[in-house]
């Protein structure tokens, strides 16, 4: 078994990386979703002083993926920043890390509900949606979409129960036409894929959850999953 799982969406063949990124190795495109940078400091502003290392941890993970796959294009599928105030809070070091990653490649930020406005400090280009080889990339999956689609927003997590033990992990959820990507951010939570929010997107349980393990991805059939 390989350390990665192949995951097709419409005409495109991707590789699902255990860090939570999708990679088109031929076209050298790397997709990530829901970085939620500065979520920690957003909580801190409300009196919960969570460890302030989430942005750098998320960016370190992203840097590893970029080193591993050397993409010519990186697309982040929205909710890159946790809130509108995040741009003012993010450390200069972290912005420098980001600028370093962008050198020598194209970088597109799709907007999300947490970050609807472009943030110049992040560099790159900003768009609401992007068509990639016949597949639509956007933040929120669109239930009426008839063509192939890759989105984020929902933070899917799958739960497997076997022999009295439950394992819950972030996952890609895909039926071959549509893929919802796991949240990439260190502090981003997960929503169980059996939650009602997913039902307009995937008919019945005919989907596969590609669950993120330690260094590899496990493909689990939808009907094997459990609710929370």
């Amino acid at each position, binding site marked *: 078994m390989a350390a990665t799982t192949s995951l097709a969406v419409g005409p495109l063949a991707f590789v699902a990386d255990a860090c939570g990124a999708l990679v088109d190795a031929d076209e050298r495109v790397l997709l990530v979703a829901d970085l939620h940078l500065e979520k920690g*400091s957003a*909580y*801190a*502003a409300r*009196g*919960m*002083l*969570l*460890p*302030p*290392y*989430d942005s750098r*941890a998320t960016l370190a993970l992203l840097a590893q993926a970029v080193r591993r796959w050397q993409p010519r294009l990186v697309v982040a599928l929205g909710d890159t920043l946790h809130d509108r105030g995040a741009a003012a*809070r993010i*450390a200069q070091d972290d912005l420098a890390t980001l600028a370093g990653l962008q050198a020598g490649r194209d970088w597109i930020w799709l907007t999300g509900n947490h970050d609807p406005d472009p943030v110049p400090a992040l560099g790159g280009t900003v768009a609401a949606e992007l068509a990639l080889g016949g597949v639509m990339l956007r933040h929120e999956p669109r239930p009426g979409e008839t063509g192939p689609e890759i989105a984020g927003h929902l*933070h899917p*997590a799958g739960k*497997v*129960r*076997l*022999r*009295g*033990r*439950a*394992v819950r*992990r972030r996952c890609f959820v895909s039926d071959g036409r549509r893929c919802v990507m796991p949240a990439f951010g*260190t*502090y981003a*939570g*997960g*929503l*169980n894929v059996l*939650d009602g929010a997913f039902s307009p997107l995937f008919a019945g*349980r005919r989907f*596969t959850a590609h*669950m993120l*393990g*330690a260094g590899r991805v*496990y*493909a*689990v*059939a939808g009907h*094997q999953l459990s*609710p*929370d």
Partner: protein
Amino acid sequence: MIDDTSPPPDVLPPRFAQWFAGRGWTPRRHQLDLLALARQGQSVLLDAPTGAGKTLAGFLPSLVDLAEGQPPKGLHTLYISPLKALAVDVARNLDMPAAEMELGLRIETRTGDTPAHKRTRQMERPPHILLTTPEQLALLLAHREAEEFFSGLKRVVLDELHALVTSKRGDLLALGLARLHRLAPGLSAIGLSATVREPDDLRRFLVPQQLRPDGTIGPAMAAHVVVRGGARADIRIMEAANRLPLAGHTALHAMKPIYNAILAHRTTLIFVNTRMQAEFVFQELWRINDEGLPIALHHGSLDVGQRRKVEAAMTSGALRAVVCTSTLDLGIDWGDVDLVVNVGAPKGASRLMQRIGRSNHRLDEASQAILVPANRFEVMECRAALEAVADAAQDTPEARKGALDVLAQHVLGMACAGGFSIDALYAEVVSAAPYGWLPRETFDRVVRFVATGGYALATYERFAKIREGKDGLWRVANPRIAQQYRMNVGTIVEEPMLKVRLGRIRRSAPGSPGAPVRGGRVLGEVEEYFAETLLPGDTFVFAGEVLRFEAIAETDVIVSRTSPGTDPKIPSYAGGKFPLSTFLAERVRGMLADPAVWGRIPGGVADWLETQRRKSVLPRRDEMLVETFPRSGRYYMVAYPFEGRLAHQTLGMLITRRLERARLKPLGFVVTDYGLGVWGLADIGAALAQGRLTLDGLFSQDMLGDDLEEWLAESSLMKRTFRHCAIIAGLIERRFPGQEKTGRQVTMSTDLVYDVLRRHEPDHVLLEATRADAATGLLDLRRLADCLSRIRGRIVHKNLDHVSPLAVSVLLEIGREAVYGEAAEEILAQAEAQLFEEALA
């Protein structure tokens, strides 16, 4: 200690002497001794068995004070109990003498149930005596008016002190008490306690310890009044008609004799160790309840209304028996109990004595108690407990080292109260006995944690929760933080609970997932982690009936009723809360090693041990036996450390890691309070014989180094421990009812925070607090460490062809107990393999 032979002090005013006489009572010696000491302004520990009239003794000095002249305007006496029900109960009992002697006192309670207008009134016009809990004391002390409110306080009475000091609530209380001593310099404290192993720990707890100029702490102790003897207990072990089972915790064999004992007594309390056991015993008793006796059930997971009904019926004498867990351990007077039955092993001698003390609340009559062991190990444990009770030996735990998360909560509270100077607060904190160990540097880190999170990467200055003012006092940065403090106060962190609700599943088509239909009655609550192990269709016992699990819908566990006679499928025993005490374990090991005493142990134990000696080995008292044997295609290793299930569970996790590394392919393990069984695909016995593996190596202490660190990174127990610390320390907020509905799936998971903190700042003060908890809490690391050092060079190995009699008792728990050692990755890989099989089929 007081000399009993001297004449009792003449301290009782005539009005009180008359009152005693009028009720036909004579003041007891310890009541007068305590009164004399307290009237001199001394702090006192009263250490007495149940039924000695402790509560009256504790209040007598205050009543005598208050009867002299005009009662003062402010608060005179504060009473703290671990249970709010106990505070209410004691207030009721105190009203009687106060009213009969016409003392004109206002005696009030303040608990979570006290309405807001009454709280406000209590602050404006304090009662003379206020009865409350440690959490409410913390809230009062964080009040802006605290200084004035407590300035005239003369006495604080701490009830059930032995029970309070063993937990983080005791830490919170110790910090509150230190503050009270500072706010009210004339304050003296009275501690009421059951007999404990180290009364000096409690004596130190009551009075401020002195910080010497050289930084060390000078010991100070409260006076000590002791009542010995007390109720003689008439305890017996229930004789089994047949041999006892080798394993299991149901004690099914004993139901008829227990029922007969209920018939022969007025009111019987039946103690069990877990909720599941309570459910089982209750159900079995009703199955044979031909006389239709009123037998009730009481445990912490039942609906509150249901519990209150049972308590009321109990007090009014309407019940013949109550099956209960430790929820009824503490001192509330539940009416006329004349028999206590303890089903299962008592786990600790002191706990057993507490439970037995629930019967016959009178010193002069012997308490009646029956111990009902459920298996052969338990009968030895019962025997050991019985001997310990006869020797009046105690096994209460050691004094705690005050926890850092509780300190963080207290620091925030003091900032809410109107500000603190950091030097003065440090001096105050280390004057509390549990915090005498605290170095200034650690204290400063805790203050920094409260202020800005205390991270090396200091980016939260602008979000600081507390700030130092120009006057050198630290105060909360804004009122919202004070509000947050009040919502999160306390040290009891509940496991996430789900409501058990009757309902059904409506399916649109056969085989479709269907939608749960709710609206049925709520039967109680279960822990989320228990619910997670259930699959639709599983049956389990709850609230006295067999229920079928249908689904989890938001925060509800939807269940349906089963037809009569359905057997529960899910094990009826979900692990004991209390592990076997070190002290009883030692006695049980001694029994194993001494054939001379076997004859005194009922239930077929002598034969069982004799067979063990013939077929395998019985270890000496200081040795640990390890047996290896093959069985139906698997290889087993069973060890008998006798250190309780928590320590064994940690040991099992670490041992299986080592066996994995040695390529001995362990598959899983099971633990009991007595032993640990590991099984796998490779022959461990052969590996030992060939020297590829040594037991001294396998059980060497260095497993507590790197192996432990590696495991802790993933351990769900450690993550649970961290979550508790993070909530108590105020890093994250508790979940509130209603909040789960919208946020359950997406709330910030503390697991993520734990991972990040561990990676980026492993020495953070909150991880220090978590590790300290792990040493004594769910992982019981300290006990494991002591065990590994005890058995070093004293491991006896026996390679066998078959399972041994002792090993049967451990292995029979497989299927009853959760089996550990399944790595998360393994489970994912299995789920994936199923997908591949489907694809190929």
